[in-house]
């Protein structure tokens, strides 16, 4: 009821802000507008991207044929007059003529789309025409290409943020191996497919290959073991220490009394079937843990 009342008040109030509301959190990733492109795959859900941006964040996509477009535009008569408040019937018929002229011809109308997650996507879309007639077998300037479809899939690709596991967990000691591994990753292969149904499709895949460990201090204070495989080595009692950090000095003199250990996961990215020759930088995702390191105290009794 309150919502209805608010809606009525909004209708009654003239003036004020115009257009749809938006949250200005555009940085990267993919949020398609006016697009028929379908994004699928386990790499498109959850996780974090790496800020990869599509080179041109707007494009034309194939749309209806001549007959479909002419029919649609005739039905949108009321919309045309709302968008052309000074328009006359003769002008509307002139507008329709460009569509009627294409009925029966080979080709399609292409329409503009954009990536609304890109800071320049909305502006880019602003520079495109509302529709472009394209003969068969050709791509218009700014028409979507397979290369751009790969870029869209790449921009949508995310990897999970790793949970850093340590042993010992709460506090370590000088010369004691601190084992490092990661958890919460799930599958180590993440893919995204961007498809323009009936036209083309592209898939990119990231495979967790490596983790990188930074001790948070200089080499004379810590020794890093990096034979970690793809996700580190969970602690095994009596096992061989190959992945983690052995701190050689206590952290008491460090800011906040801790070393800040960093772990990055490294996910090389490939384009499936090499549909276009691309070499992407790996996606990296990581985190930090505070590691307090104490001296081992020993009492000698005489």
């Amino acid at each position, binding site marked *: 009821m309150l919502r209805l009342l608010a809606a009525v008040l909004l209708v009654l109030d003239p003036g*004020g802000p*115009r*257009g*749809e509301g*938006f949250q200005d959190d555009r940085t990267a990733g993919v949020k398609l507008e006016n697009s028929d492109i379908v994004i699928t795959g386990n790499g498109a859900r959850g996780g974090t991207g790496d800020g990869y941006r599509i080179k041109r964040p707007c494009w034309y996509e194939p749309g209806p044929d001549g007959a479909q477009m002419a029919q649609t535009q005739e039905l949108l008569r009321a919309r045309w007059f709302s968008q052309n408040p000074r328009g006359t019937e003769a002008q509307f018929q002139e507008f329709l003529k460009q569509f009627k002229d294409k009925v029966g011809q080979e080709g399609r109308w292409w329409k503009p789309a954009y990536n609304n997650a890109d800071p*320049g996507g909305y502006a880019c*879309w*602003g520079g495109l025409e509302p529709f472009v007639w394209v003969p068969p077998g050709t791509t218009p300037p700014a028409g979507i290409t397979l290369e751009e479809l790969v870029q869209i899939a790449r921009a949508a690709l995310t990897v999970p943020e790793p949970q850093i596991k340590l042993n010992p967990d709460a506090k370590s000691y000088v010369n004691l191996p601190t084992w490092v591994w990661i958890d919460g990753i799930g599958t180590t292969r993440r893919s995204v497919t961007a498809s323009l149904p009936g036209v083309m499709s592209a898939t990119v895949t990231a495979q967790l290959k490596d983790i990188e460990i930074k001790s948070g201090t200089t080499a004379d204070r810590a020794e890093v073991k990096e034979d970690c495989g793809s996700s580190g080595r969970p602690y095994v009692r009596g096992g061989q220490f190959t992945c983690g950090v052995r701190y050689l000095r206590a952290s008491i003199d460090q800011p906040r009394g801790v070393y800040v250990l960093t772990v990055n996961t490294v996910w090389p990215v490939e384009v499936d079937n090499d549909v276009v020759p691309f070499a992407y930088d790996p996606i990296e995702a990581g985190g930090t843990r505070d590691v307090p390191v104490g001296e081992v105290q020993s009492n000698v009794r005489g």
Partner: protein
Amino acid sequence: MRRWLLVLLLAAGCGQADKPYTPRQAAAPPAASEEAGATPTPTVETVRLGPELSVGIDWPAGADLALLKGFTDLYLDSWRAVQTGDDGYLDRVEGAAAAEAHAWVRGFRGAKVRGQARLYALNVRAVVGDGAEVGACVDESGLRLLSRTGRELARQPAWTRGPYLQAVVLRRDDDGGWRVKDFRHDLKGCA
């Protein structure tokens, strides 16, 4: 150009853009070369749209004036349309924005406004090819909605209570001018 002769521009140094307008601070309007390019320093302009309505515009230094005016001219012309019925604002819009601008003006149904609005934090958010996005904070808390008989309404619209962010996307037309193609807003964008 005529508007530029009518308006009063304040030459202001950095950090002075928020100063309220006083006539004694009036300075000469920008030279033609400045109009075409960018304002060299922040300036405050007051545009009178009638005896009871004006709009203050805080022009930032160094911004693309032609692009920003794509936004501000539509804003000013929209209020002119409300006050006088002049539909010149329709020359500054196209597509969905034309429908929205027209509905916005018609929404007043003959009612008028009184007071001063202010545009500040004008900025070109992106320019890509022949498209651009411009945003500004719109403060209409100094306006009051009047009835058709000219009396101030007891219940004022929500937009008189605080500033909001208004963004537009513009398209460069064949003559090199900019026309507004779409609107967006964020009610909390200027809080």
